């Protein structure tokens, strides 16, 4: 640990290279082409470096790897403690994977204040990676809040129509919810004298935290509210459709692809990790909220006239699966939840990119403005179909594996939840395929659409990786799952102890 190696420095590098790139961009002259190229270069470099993680990750090993733990601030005792396990590692890679795609997709659609856009986009990447790799609660909160400002500005400055409303709503919802988490973190610090996640977790499990039993339900709620708003779980979801519809394409891609996962990651890491008993006690109503989210999100998605809003509501539905999987406390459920997080990031990110491509050409997201697009845009239609099927959960594509695992986990925990949740899969096929039919099939209904240009090379460059990964994840899920599995088992360990305690009584 004393000699810095590439293994302990890699997380710091991956986290801060985008930030360094952003700082460099501040001093860059306002030459838009070069700025775009540089942002792409930085994000690609970050992605390549982040591949170090899966390449050198010890897959059959639980616990945190690539750790770096140095004191940062002596009073209060804050450490710069970073590390990943099988859960967070993939979320880091997801972030670094989607960012270059976001840069590519913003190439032409962002023409106003290009420099500021890419500066904020790169800062956002740093903050997102930081959230997933922090093992110090303080550091985690620090990055968590730091994601807010760039995202709100991306929506508010480069968004569409009611962008200011959406940005302010997004900011206030998440800000207000996360102060409850801050209060809970402060309580834990006041009683344990540390922010270190591992130390606090061990202290809680060994019953060394004074007054914990009385405070735990409130602490659980404090963390839960912050994460539930981010996920978003019904009924905290109302900011999401607004934010998605008004955000610029790259903003939507990152918002759906990564930002929402901060919430589910937080539930998994903190609510389950620190408060297993409360998680168990509250599981029933949280699962019901998740179920409502699955079905409600799907039904609302079905009637949306706006393509982006439809995808936004489908996110609520898909994230409901994740929460249901997490609170099933079965290893299949958790594996599946993790897998959906990744798969949803790829496929919904892809769908938002596709919607954005169409918007660039016609400046509308209204489904009724399109129809018969398969004729003028064959390549576009093919990509759209592929990603749609991945999102629907067609076997051999990435959506299927996660949903199957979550449903089987939910079924073994509560058969009724499993059955009701399964209807969500059907709903998602309905609304997505119906949208596909209305947009692409039949005759061209609007004459403006006759001459609509097909995908350009750059757009294909952004879409190919997403499509390939969607396929590979569906065909070879084990490559991802065998890194996730040990982390899931260690997350579930307190629950099996809990169960045996209950049985013992």
């Amino acid at each position, binding site marked *: 640990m004393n000699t810095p190696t590439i293994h302990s420095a890699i997380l710091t590098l991956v986290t801060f290279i985008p930030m360094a790139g952003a700082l460099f961009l501040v001093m860059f002259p306002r030459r838009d082409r070069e700025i775009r190229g540089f942002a792409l270069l930085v994000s690609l470099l970050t992605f390549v470096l982040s591949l170090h993680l899966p390449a050198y990750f010890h897959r059959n090993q639980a616990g945190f790897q690539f750790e770096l733990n140095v004191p*940062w*601030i002596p009073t209060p005792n804050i450490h710069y403690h970073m590390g990943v396990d099988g859960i967070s590692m993939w979320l880091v890679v997801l972030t670094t994977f989607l960012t270059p795609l976001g840069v590519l997709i913003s190439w032409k659609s962002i023409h106003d204040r290009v420099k500021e856009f890419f500066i904020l986009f790169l800062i956002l990447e740093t903050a997102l990676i930081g959230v997933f790799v922090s093992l110090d609660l303080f550091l985690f909160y620090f*990055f968590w809040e*730091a994601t807010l*400002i760039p995202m709100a500005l991306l929506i*508010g*400055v480069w968004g569409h129509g009611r962008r200011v409303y959406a*940005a302010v709503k997004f900011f206030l919802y998440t800000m207000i919810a996360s102060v409850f988490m*801050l*209060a809970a973190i402060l309580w834990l610090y006041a009683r344990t004298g540390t922010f270190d996640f591992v130390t606090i977790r061990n202290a809680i499990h060994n019953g060394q935290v004074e007054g914990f039993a009385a405070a735990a339900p409130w602490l659980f709620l404090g963390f839960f509210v912050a994460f539930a708003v981010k996920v978003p779980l019904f009924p905290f979801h109302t900011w999401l459709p607004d934010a998605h519809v008004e955000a610029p394409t790259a903003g939507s891609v990152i918002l759906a692809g990564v930002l929402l996962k901060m919430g589910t990651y937080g539930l998994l890491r903190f609510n389950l990790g620190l408060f297993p008993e409360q998680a168990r006690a509250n599981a029933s109503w949280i699962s019901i909220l998740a179920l409502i989210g699955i079905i409600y999100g799907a039904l609302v998605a079905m009637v949306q006239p706006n393509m982006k809003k439809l995808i936004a509501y489908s996110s609520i539905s898909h994230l409901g699966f994740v929460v249901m999987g997490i609170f099933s406390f079965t290893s299949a459920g958790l594996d599946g939840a993790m897998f959906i997080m990744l798969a949803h990031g790829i496929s919904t990110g892809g769908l938002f990119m596709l919607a954005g491509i169409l918007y660039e050409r016609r400046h509308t997201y209204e489904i009724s403005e399109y129809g018969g697009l398969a004729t003028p845009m064959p390549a576009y239609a093919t990509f759209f179909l592929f990603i749609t099927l991945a999102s629907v959960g067609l076997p051999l594509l990435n959506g299927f594996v996660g949903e199957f695992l979550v449903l089987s986990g939910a079924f073994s925990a509560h058969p009724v939840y499993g059955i009701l949740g399964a209807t969500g899969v059907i709903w998602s096929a309905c609304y997505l395929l119906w949208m596909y039919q209305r947009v692409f099939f039949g005759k061209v209904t609007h004459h403006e659409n006759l001459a609509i240009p097909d995908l350009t090379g750059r757009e294909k460059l952004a879409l190919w990786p997403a499509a390939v990964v969607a396929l590979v994840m569906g065909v070879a899920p084990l490559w991802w799952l065998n890194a996730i599995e040990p982390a899931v088992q260690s997350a579930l360990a307190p629950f099996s102890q809990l169960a045996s305690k209950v049985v013992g009584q």
Partner: protein
Amino acid sequence: MNTPQGVEYIRILPEIVLSVFGMAIMLLDPLLDDRRAPRLLGVVALVGSFAALAATLLQTQSPGLAFWGMVKVDSFSIFFHFLITAITAVVVLTSFEYMEVQKIHAGEYYGLVLFGAVGMCLMSSAVELVLIFIALEISSISTYILAGFRQRAAISSESSLKYFLLGSFATAFFLYGVALMFGATGSTSISLIGQSLSQSPAPLLAYAGIAFMFVGLGFKVAAAPFHIWTPDVYEGAPSPVVGFMSTAPKAAVFAVLLRILFEAHAPGRLWLIWIVAALSMTLGNIGALVQSNVKRLLAYSSIAHAGYLLVAFAALPANGIPAAMFYTASYAAMNVGAFAVISHFAGSGERLVTLEDYAGLGKRSPLLAATLTIFLLSLIGIPMTGGFFAKFYVFSAALQANLPGLVIVGVLNSAVAAYYYLRLIVVMYMRDAREDAPVSRIPLAMGTALVITVFATVYLGVLPGRILEYAAQSANELMR
């Protein structure tokens, strides 16, 4: 009574230096012609505040009591001396441009700023209630006059008069409290009061004395319910002066409060503070929600921040004192900075001060907008800025003292507060400008002031450890 020794003069050296420079400015003023005077006198004032800063550094070598136990130099007083002289220097830097643009006569202005700083410095090192009262008056009288320095604006005279009348009333309360305290304990020395109050149960008179003193000091820091004057005074006073009087005198008064409440073992502290803190946070933030004038908005915000700061006073001394000290420092950095931006942007006659005027600033002057954004984010309490750690230390100190109720009030309040600061950011970046006139260039002195305040805000947000350790150490000395 023995005569003071040489070292005792070193223990008031910053005050001496500031007074000498202040008088020098008054004497130089008539000798210079009007064209060159403002700049030259500003430079003298700047040199004066830096000399005082150096004198404070010198003091670190010779801590101790001076002048028959009325002045005490310890790391606590040095912290506040340093803070106040630094604020003075930055405010002088921001005033260079203001003097020229507003065509204000500079002589008395710079003199009064330095005299005000004398009073504030003395407040932080005085340990005798009558001397504290005199220091408070020195500082207050200077700020009363400074508030009315925009002679051409009626609103400024109103500001000055209001501040003067209500402020005199408040200092009278303080003096009355001192008298009652003397009656209760037979002394005006803080350490003797502390001894007598900690030995026997406090007499009723002492409670009354503390309450009266708190009214007087609460007025000076704009804590609710003594806050009514704040928005009017801040709106009328010249912007650099508002930056000055919303930070330096507040820091000094908080220093006095820390000494009185903790060193003198004041009775009945907890509930008094609890109520005033909760009330200040809530009234300040609610008031700020509906403001359309940026100066009034920041006035209400300063009421709220006084509330957050007071939360630390309800905590245990070991955590509360350093938290409060850190808060004064980081609030000073961000608020002086914010008012520097406002005074630069306001233009001649301070015309541009409403939210609407800031529309599109992000495009018209990205640098100025980004700077103001940093200060506003710090006022919200976003990580990476001093404002975050300030709130963080205060709330965690309160939690360690087992005051979850007060923390919840504070946390909810900071969520509400995010809204109105954000409104300004939204207006700057997401609204189109009414006129695309370029914002005037930032002159060198103003630029330096902005660089210093941004640096301080970010430094406190990334590496708060050293300042906090120093504050904790001086809290230890204070409690010994």
